[in-house]
């Protein structure tokens, strides 16, 4: 490029006329070449009805570029030859011509290919698209082979062929992929009945299912299946055997239901795994795999959540808080084209109407605020009440968990005592949200803001409950740890050192003299934690399903069938049908996922349970929604594009990472159960692997890397990077806002200018707008009258709204629309008759006065 620039400068100094003549030459040549090339196309071109613009434009562009390129090249040649005669350059052109032609052709082929790939984005009729497509394909087909020459030709043809194959493969793969997306039709059905917002919950559920399937694959493929296939069988070790005292009842359903007995001593829980370094003939390093899988579950989940958040953020270029287009958006985007059900459509119509009315009222009363003190007081009161509720529920859970610990020490406790924690937590989760909703009615927020508050409060409730539960559990764990020390000594003496041989190296374990069922063993706090989480999850599943069954299905049946013989209309009156609670369901799903993340380290089988749950949930909830719910009376925005739920998920993920990381890093693992038994800390397994399995220098490198002197600067660097990127994004945001403001200002300015220009006689225009059919004949008369009005008012055409007008109607009705309201129509009609019958000067004034400012503001004049 710059070379060409230099040359052209030289050229400018020297031979201006020469250049011109040469250009003419090229042009001619170009034309000739083109003619020759296009002869092939001629027939096709004739067949085409209308040559499309794009193609022409691109051709023109090509012409220009090739011309320039040619000039450059010939100039080079000219320099080489040191001659300026046009004849010589002309002759040298002969050989470069074909090259140029080829380049041009290539470019054109590329152009056509681009056209083919973007054909579907063109707003043309299908017939036209098809014909243009065929043409482009033919063109590419025809000239693709001709490109390249000599040795390059074959390679080029090969490349083209591969590219074609690749495109075909991609398309087939794409077809295959869309076929693999499950539940597409099911979701579509829900969507057509309930609109996009309810369907967004099911799409979220499906996404969640996909994530859990990956986690399930990781855990089952890398931990559970190797252990089952290659690990020591059941009954070979104390940790893999049900203790003698429990054996009599280990198969009872009531025991299994509490995840005790055989389930407790199975591969579903942490305690089952052996601390043998390698298992089976594969020398599979199970403890290492267990640890890495536990970490990679969090890693994968974090990655997926953040990636989808980023994608959402990228997709939504729109900033929802832009309130420049309230009415426009309401008008053009409020209808959900997905709706295909008359009932939903009715609701949608109603909700659109209310939303229009609401925003009209908002417009009219935007600065009316009555009794702000009362409202403030009510809001504070509501928040105090809700905080009380939260604290109360937190305390209740703490109390119950503490009590359950004393229960667990007692013998033969009842069913209720054993399941008290889960029952209380489920009941709290069931009754607190409606309570919050009732309290929130005090606050009188806008429904959308109200929904956010409500979600935040439920979130706080769940989170508080979960963390209280964790704290209580932690107490429990600490107690167990103390207990363990005692047991450890007993075991030690019982086994007389036999046990010690199994720790450490991978020599075969000498069988203890005792039967594994008789060995005294520690409480194994990890399994206890795992069992707690599994029980919580299962009871959560049950409560959810029962709620759906009773709260939705039975209620719907009752309303439907008892309605025939009841005193009032059940369908329209009190119980009516249930609505699908999107936000509650999404929150439930998010919390459930948090529990899975927290529990999966200590209960690898938990993810399997969750996959089953999501699978059944998909079918069950789809069925429940279609059979017993009614569409929302108030339709909320679809949550698919906004990141609110994803943000909640990320928060939960982070919060569930904390306790797991804490236990891994700072609690000693149990001495006689689990893959890390015998180690001081769980992460020692990595050190062990590095020391024993890797060459020495890796260990060295690792020890260098793990040096705090390196880690602290690395963290510092990351923090600084985050700070810098944050600052950059802030700056961009500011620039964006600035630009937006500028655009807005420009627009306003333009409007003002036009207004001033156009409104030499705004009133006339306005009247004409109003009375188009009838005024034509009377316009001269009216014009005169208008002039009179203006002169009488004696002000510029664009005026501030008069006081009388403010009194007459609300200020916001003062747009041009005010002229269309019935009262104004009445008075508009009045002057007309006056004008026709008795146009005397004094009369129009009282009528004309309120009319004056109307057009000015309607035409975009800002309110001063």
């Amino acid at each position, binding site marked *: 490029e710059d070379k060409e620039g230099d040359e052209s400068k030289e050229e400018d100094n020297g031979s201006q006329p020469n250049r011109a003549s040469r250009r003419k030459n090229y042009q001619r040549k170009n034309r000739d070449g083109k003619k020759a090339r296009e002869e092939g196309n001629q027939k096709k071109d004739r067949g085409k009805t209308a040559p499309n613009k794009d193609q022409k434009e691109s051709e023109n562009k090509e012409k220009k570029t090739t011309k320039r390129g040619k000039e450059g090249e010939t100039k080079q040649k000219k320099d080489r030859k040191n001659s300026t005669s046009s004849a010589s350059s002309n002759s040298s052109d002969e050989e470069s011509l074909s090259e140029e032609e080829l380049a041009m052709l290539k470019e054109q082929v590329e152009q056509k290919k681009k056209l*083919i790939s973007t*054909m*579907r*984005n063109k*707003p043309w*009729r*299908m*017939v036209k698209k*098809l014909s243009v*497509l065929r043409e482009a394909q033919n063109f590419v087909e025809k000239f693709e082979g001709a490109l390249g020459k000599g040795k390059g030709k074959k390679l080029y043809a090969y490349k083209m062929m591969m590219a074609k194959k690749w495109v075909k493969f991609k*398309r087939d793969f794409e*077809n295959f992929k*869309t*076929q693999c997306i499950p539940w597409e039709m099911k979701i*579509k059905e829900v969507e*057509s009945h309930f609109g*996009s917002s309810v369907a967004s919950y099911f799409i979220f559920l499906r996404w969640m299912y996909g994530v859990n399937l990956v986690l399930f694959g990781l855990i089952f493929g890398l931990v559970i299946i190797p252990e089952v296939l290659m690990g020591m069988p059941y009954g070979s070790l104390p940790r893999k055997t049900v203790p003698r005292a429990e054996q009599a009842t280990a198969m009872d359903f009531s025991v299994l239901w509490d995840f005790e007995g055989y389930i407790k001593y199975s591969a579903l829980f942490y305690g089952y795994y052996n601390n043998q370094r390698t298992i089976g003939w594969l020398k599979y390093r199970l403890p290492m795999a267990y640890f890495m899988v536990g970490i990679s579950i969090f890693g994968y989940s974090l990655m997926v959540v953040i990636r989808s958040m980023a994608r959402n953020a990228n997709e939504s270029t*729109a*900033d*929802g808080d*832009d309130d420049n*287009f*309230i*009415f*426009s*958006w309401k*008008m*053009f*985007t409020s*209808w*959900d*084209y*997905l709706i*295909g*059900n*008359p009932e*939903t*459509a009715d609701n949608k*119509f109603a909700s659109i*109407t209310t939303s*229009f*009315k609401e925003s*009209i009222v908002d*417009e009219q009363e935007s600065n009316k605020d009555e009794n702000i003190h009362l409202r403030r007081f009510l809001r504070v009161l509501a928040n105090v009440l809700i905080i009380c509720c939260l604290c109360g529920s937190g305390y209740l859970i703490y109390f119950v968990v503490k009590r359950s610990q004393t229960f667990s020490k007692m013998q033969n406790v009842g069913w209720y005592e054993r399941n008290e924690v889960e029952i209380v937590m489920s009941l709290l989760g069931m009754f607190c949200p409606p309570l919050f909703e009732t309290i929130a009615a005090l606050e009188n927020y806008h429904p959308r803001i109200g929904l956010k508050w409500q979600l935040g409060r439920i979130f706080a409730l769940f989170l508080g409950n979960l963390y209280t539960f964790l704290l209580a559990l932690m107490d429990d764990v600490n107690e167990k740890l103390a207990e363990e020390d005692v047991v450890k000594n007993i075991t030690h003496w019982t086994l007389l050192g036999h046990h010690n041989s199994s720790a450490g190296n991978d020599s075969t374990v000498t069988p203890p003299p005792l039967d594994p069922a008789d060995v005294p063993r520690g409480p194994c706090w990890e399994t206890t934690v795992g069992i707690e989480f599994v029980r919580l999850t299962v009871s959560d599943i049950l409560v959810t399903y029962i709620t759906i069954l009773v709260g939705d299905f039975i209620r719907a049946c009752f309303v439907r069938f008892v309605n025939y013989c009841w005193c009032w209309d059940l369908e329209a009156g009190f119980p009516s049908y249930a609505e699908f609670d999107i936000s509650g369901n999404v929150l439930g799903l998010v919390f459930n996922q948090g529990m899975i993340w927290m529990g999966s380290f200590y209960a690898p089988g938990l993810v399997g349970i969750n996959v089953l749950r999501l699978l059944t949930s998909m079918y069950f909830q789809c069925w429940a929604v279609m059979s017993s719910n009614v569409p929302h009376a108030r339709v909320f*925005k*679809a949550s*698919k*594009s*906004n990141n609110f739920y994803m943000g909640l998920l990320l928060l939960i993920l982070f919060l569930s990472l904390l306790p797991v990381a804490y236990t891994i890093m700072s609690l000693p693992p149990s001495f006689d159960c689990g893959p890390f038994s015998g180690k001081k800390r769980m992460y020692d397994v990595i050190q062990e692997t590095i020391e024993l399995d890797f060459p020495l220098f890796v260990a060295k490198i690792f020890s260098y890397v793990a040096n705090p002197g390196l880690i602290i600067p690395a963290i510092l660097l990351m923090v600084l990077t985050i700070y810098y990127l944050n600052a950059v994004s802030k700056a961009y945001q500011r620039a964006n806002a600035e630009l937006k403001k500028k655009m807005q200002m420009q*627009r306003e300015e*333009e*409007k003002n200018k*036009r207004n001033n220009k156009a409104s030499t006689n705004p009133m006339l225009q306005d009247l004409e707008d109003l009375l188009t059919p009838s005024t034509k004949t009377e316009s001269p008369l009216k014009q005169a009258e208008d002039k009179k009005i203006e002169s009488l008012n004696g002000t510029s055409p664009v005026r501030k709204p008069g006081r009388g007008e403010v009194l007459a109607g609300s200020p916001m*009705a003062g*747009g*041009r*629309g005010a002229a*269309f*309201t019935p009262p104004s129509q009445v008075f508009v009609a009045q002057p007309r008759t006056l004008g026709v019958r008795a146009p005397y000067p004094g009369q129009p004034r009282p009528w004309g006065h309120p009319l004056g400012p109307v057009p000015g503001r*309607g035409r975009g004049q800002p309110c001063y």
Partner: protein
Amino acid sequence: MGNKQTIFTQEQLDAYQDCTFFTRKEILRLFHRYRDLAPQLVPLDYSDKPAVTLPYELIGSMPELKDNPFRQRIAEVFSEHGDGNMTLDDFLDMFSVLSEMAPRDLKAYYAFKIYDFNNDDYICKSDLEKTVNKLTRNELTPEEVSLVCEKVIYEADADNDGKLSLADFQHMIIRAPDFLSTFHIRI
């Protein structure tokens, strides 16, 4: 995948896949949906491109469209002669534009055409009034309707000619948070 279908030739299918946002299977499904509207009219062999047109009454009775207040406009915009009667090509076109994959600009272009009731390439006040009345089933009073229309023009009319041009419309709609999610029909 089975090549048993004899409705289209392979080239036709490829061309349709290039021209729409549908996969092969979806195109076949759409064809069957189209055919189900009038099995006696639509032949099972489309390889020689029969000129079959289905009347609007049939198109508008599809469950995907029958509750849509703008169904007539949609059919008119996508039909060849603007009368709502559709060939298979028009039908594919329509659902391609309304599919999830279609880009914002394309959707905005067709949305503009749909809301432009009198086909004058501007959305003027009468178009807006029609839109509001269709959206609310004439529940709003005339004053409210005209107030809403005024506000829309005030908000979106950048060049201040009292009506919305395509550029105005695109400028406004591209920022709308739920335009993409609502202006689509899943089939």
